């Protein structure tokens, strides 16, 4: 009994220690951001008084409002369009039998592992030739293409897990494939679809390289791109608190969603671990 108790205490100690390690870096920039800009900050120093002035300055100087809106437009569009297309494709893979389904599915699986860093060169010239670099399109269209493999994979797994008898019964009633999807399957699919939307939204929200390459004008910067440029611009003048405040504000939307929906986040990440 005492051995079990000792083991339990050890477990708590180990888990606790690693949780501190996991949270500390985030906490450290939050503490940094709560300082006044004039404070001389080193190491573990705590702010004298809670001040949000640095956040306000970062918001204004970093033009964060506009960047967060840009990120919302891009991530929202990508996740919703991906959800629609991936649900349709996942339905075909999960609930229908057709020639070449294995081959097509393997073709899609490649998309889960290949580095999208290897696609950005042609993408840049493709959009440049179309006169579409420096636009939302240059961020939205490629990221739909990149999210399709995970989304389809995810929805296929869902449609495979639904009882085949349900689809069969609906079809015997004479329902078309679309009516079966719409009336019979979709009502149960919402949890799976929501998880997918949340994950694709997060990945798109956090994306950096594509924005770095495609976006030139200040007004179209996404939040991570704006933040990286803001951090670079403030590196020389030692204004660490300002950069930290901007970083916290950029991370905040996803963190709020994560805290609320962490269960489905983690479940979805395991299924799609290879996409990111």
């Amino acid at each position, binding site marked *: 009994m005492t051995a079990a108790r000792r083991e339990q205490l050890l477990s708590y100690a180990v888990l606790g220690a690693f949780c501190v390690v996991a949270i500390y870096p985030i906490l450290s920039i939050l503490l940094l951001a709560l300082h006044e800009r004039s404070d001389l900050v080193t190491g573990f120093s705590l702010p004298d008084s809670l001040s949000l002035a640095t956040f306000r300055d970062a918001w204004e100087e970093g033009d964060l409002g506009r960047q967060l809106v840009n990120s919302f437009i891009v991530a929202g569009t990508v996740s919703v369009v991906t959800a629609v297309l991936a649900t349709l494709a996942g339905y075909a893979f999960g609930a229908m039998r057709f020639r070449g389904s*294995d081959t097509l599915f393997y073709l899609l699986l490649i998309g889960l592992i290949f580095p999208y860093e290897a696609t950005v060169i042609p993408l840049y010239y493709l959009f440049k030739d179309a006169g579409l670099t420096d636009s939302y399109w240059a961020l939205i*269209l490629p990221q739909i293409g990149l999210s399709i493999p995970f989304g389809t994979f995810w929805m296929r797994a869902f449609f495979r897990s639904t009882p085949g008898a349900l689809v069969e019964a609906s079809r015997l009633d004479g329902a078309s494939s679309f009516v079966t999807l719409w009336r019979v399957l979709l009502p149960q699919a919402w949890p799976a679809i929501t998880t997918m939307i949340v994950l694709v939204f997060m990945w798109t929200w956090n994306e950096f390289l594509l924005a770095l390459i495609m976006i030139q004008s200040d007004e179209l910067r996404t939040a991570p791109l704006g933040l990286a440029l803001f951090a670079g611009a403030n590196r020389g003048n030692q204004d660490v608190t300002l950069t930290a405040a901007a970083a916290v504000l950029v991370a905040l939307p996803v963190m709020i969603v994560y805290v609320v929906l962490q269960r489905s*986040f983690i479940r979805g*990440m395991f299924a799609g671990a*290879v996409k*990111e």
Partner: protein
Amino acid sequence: VAAPSARGVGAPAPPARRERPAAAAAGPERRVRVRAPGEPRRVAYLYLAPAFLFYLVFAFGPLVYTAWLSLFDWDGLTVGEWVGVENYDKILSDPDIRSSLVHSFELIVFYAVLPVGLGLMLASVIAHSRVRGVTFFRAALFLPQTIATVVVAIAWVWIYAPEGPLNEALRAVGLGGLARGWLGDFDFALPALGLVGTWVMFGLCLVMFLAGIQKIPFSLYEAARVDGAGRVREFFAVTLPGLRAELAVALTFTTIMALRTFDLIYVSTAGGPGTSTTVPSVLVYQEAFVNGRVGLAAAVAVVLTALIFVVAFAITRVVDRDPSR
């Protein structure tokens, strides 16, 4: 998951049933032709078309086109010149490009080997003691996965800063002699960035392994105890084989992430000091969009992609080979 679950792809569909007289005779007003379930349906292609259109045009197509571009000497503006495999020769002979590949392999140690090893060890320690508050621990350990890498980079640049928390901690325990600007140091910058990768990946591995151990039948552990196996034997005889699938997923994912590292390095060190933290994806960006050597950049991208495929394939073959299946 791609690796292990790719396995279920070939699973046979339920046997097709030819006729359903009851349904066919349901009534003359029913004009829809009744289809046997499991019968090949051409309408499937219609459902796939939009998704594949986006995937082929904006993801898979560009990947293939990158391979084509890698055979040219092209500055991105004028007409390119066909040079065959010359760009690949350059990759083999250029010391900076070669060292960027070496850096990638060093990062694999930090992104994949360390978190997986550590995760395995801790998961087996924790697995069978009753811990309350699992939801909280899991959420906290998983947090680094959800934060934008740009934000992660900014946080760690601060931690490694000359006046940052790490150096202050070292001074506090009397090791001030070790304090330095970690990311400005030729020898320490890459390991320092690697440890950020360990930080990002560790929680994911631990949470994944804990979930996996829950699925191992407890009777196996009891049998091992009866056989007189100690903790170490038990780990190698029961836990490790039982975590095969999780191990394959974790190793594949973390290794791919190590090879793909871009945001973290671009934001924190931009490949410096010198070229001490340059990795292939940073080279792809610099060569294509700064130096105007598009063909060479494409060749580096192709090598990176090939490397990722080889690693993913190898891990699947070695780790996820379950003799019982």
